[in-house]
């Protein structure tokens, strides 16, 4: 069996950034496995601009952003297998790959999981009604329009205010469709404020907060949706139902890390992120298996996906050199206002960057990190919203002991 130092599963922005960073640390034997014909992952279809401001200091479209990493990966001679799908990873890090030439097995010293995420579908929401054509996930509609030159419809309702849904509202409008509105069950939008502005407000597309699609109607093709107001517990308010005729319903109702392979490898997942539980080296519960990017937790910006994957390289390097990593025994706990935190455990021996999201919009809030009875770090932000990931660092010298730490936030 072929033995490789590092096998990276997925050639999107996380996988490519990890590959380049590993090469730069002097690890020569790096293989990236990509199931599509081309590298770049989902960015191939994200043709809008706004990527790269943090990572490259300029605004790029998705394909341009990914090309930067593809070029770098080529320049430092990363091995790449395209049209190759990883179908199994064992806890012993034997990776089984489905290729054009048949099944292939590789023994990896370290595995990097960068499979990204997938969209929640109608099935996950249990929307009642018929099952006609014309109901698409936002990303699926995006690939039809941006890659395959296939228009999905003319009169569109969008359910959910995730960023991809907002981007698609604008894209559909530019291509001549009428977008009736975006319906969000929560009292605040899920997408970034700039996308509400430049994708909806610019084109006069209404955003209905605390509203949800409660029924899909139509036989062969969708003909209308029934929308109703929702209360703060996301329960439908009776008597507020209204029918909107449409030929297309786009769902933008959340992303889920793609972890089927991780589960097969014995990696423990976090209930909250739906991604792996990792330490401050991005190592999962299985020694030598690491994860970064959207497979770990859903990011709002690709720049942070790349930066996280680059940060992962150091831990992989150390693992290859020493054969194991030090146990990370300090758990990172959070209060009820915080949805999740990455990493979930830390060693306390090095600087760590925490990434988290608040559960609800908060204004002028103060974050505190406590260890034992002491506050080891504190900072204020003018606003925190669930759509924006919050990141901050804790220095090695800030840790006082090996006790667990807790992150809290108050207004």
């Amino acid at each position, binding site marked *: 069996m072929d033995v490789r130092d590092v096998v990276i599963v997925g050639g999107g922005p996380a996988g490519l950034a990890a590959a380049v960073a590993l090469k730069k640390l002097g690890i020569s034997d790096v293989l990236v496995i990509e199931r599509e*014909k081309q590298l770049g992952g989902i960015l*191939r279809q994200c*043709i*809008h*601009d*706004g990527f790269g*401001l*943090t990572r490259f200091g300029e*605004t*790029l*479209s*998705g*394909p*341009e952003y990914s*090309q930067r990493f593809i070029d770098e990966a080529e320049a430092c001679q990363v091995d790449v297998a395209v049209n190759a799908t990883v179908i199994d990873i064992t806890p012993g890090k034997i990776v089984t790959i489905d290729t054009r030439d048949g099944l292939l097995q590789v023994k990896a010293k370290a595995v990097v999981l960068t499979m990204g995420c997938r969209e929640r579908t109608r099935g996950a929401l249990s929307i009642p009604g018929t099952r006609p054509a014309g109901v698409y996930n936002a990303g699926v509609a995006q690939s039809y*329009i*941006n*890659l*395959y*030159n296939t228009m999905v419809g003319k009169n569109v309702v969008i359910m959910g205010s995730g960023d991809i849904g907002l981007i698609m509202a604008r894209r559909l409008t*530019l*291509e001549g469709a009428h977008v009736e509105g975006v319906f969000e069950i929560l009292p605040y939008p899920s997408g*970034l*404020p*700039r996308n*509400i*502005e*430049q994708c909806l*407000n*610019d084109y006069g597309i209404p955003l209905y907060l605390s509203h949800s699609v409660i029924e899909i109607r139509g036989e062969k093709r969708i003909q209308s949706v029934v929308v109703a107001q929702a209360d703060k517990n996301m329960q439908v308010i009776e008597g507020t139902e209204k029918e909107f005729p449409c030929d297309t319903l786009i769902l933008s109702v959340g992303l889920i890390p793609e972890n089927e392979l991780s589960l097969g490898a014995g990696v423990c997942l976090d209930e909250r992120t739906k991604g792996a539980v990792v330490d401050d080296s991005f190592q999962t519960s299985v020694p030598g298996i690491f994860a970064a990017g959207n497979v770990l937790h859903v990011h*709002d*910006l690709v720049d942070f996906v790349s930066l996280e994957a680059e940060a992962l390289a150091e831990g992989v390097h150390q693992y290859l050199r020493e054969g194991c990593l030090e146990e990370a025994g300090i758990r990172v706990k959070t209060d009820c206002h915080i949805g999740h935190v990455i990493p979930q455990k830390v060693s306390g021996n090095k600087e760590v960057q925490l990434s988290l999201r608040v559960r609800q919009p908060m204004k002028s809030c103060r974050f505190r990190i406590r260890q034992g009875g002491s506050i080891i770090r504190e900072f204020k932000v003018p606003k925190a919203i669930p759509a*924006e990931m919050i990141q901050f660092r804790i220095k090695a010298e800030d840790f006082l002991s090996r006790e667990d730490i807790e992150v809290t936030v108050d207004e």
Partner: protein
Amino acid sequence: MNSRVFTCILCPNGCEIEVCHEDGRVLETEGNKCKKGQQYVEQELTDPRRTIASSVRIKGSFLPLCSVRLTKPVPKQAIFSVMEEINKAELTAPVRIGEIVIRNVCGLESDVIVTKNMERS
């Protein structure tokens, strides 16, 4: 004197900027984390502009479309005329990122450029 709230679209921070203005002139801004926010609201008050991204048909590659974008923002009201021009264009593979598809589109001093490398297939 008037006041208005803008959401800056220049970066993902999406600052909410409260502006006091008179005759298109900015008197005071509050809420922007950087200087670009101030420039953004000045531009929004006098001549709002946007960059757009779309796609152009391409012959001879393994996909029927190639992604494109504008090199400079154009006036908001010109967006749909620019889209019409983009929809008329057609490319032949191979193309490289940065190649100009339409120079000076609609006379607006902005070029439509390729944003994806596409090989012949």
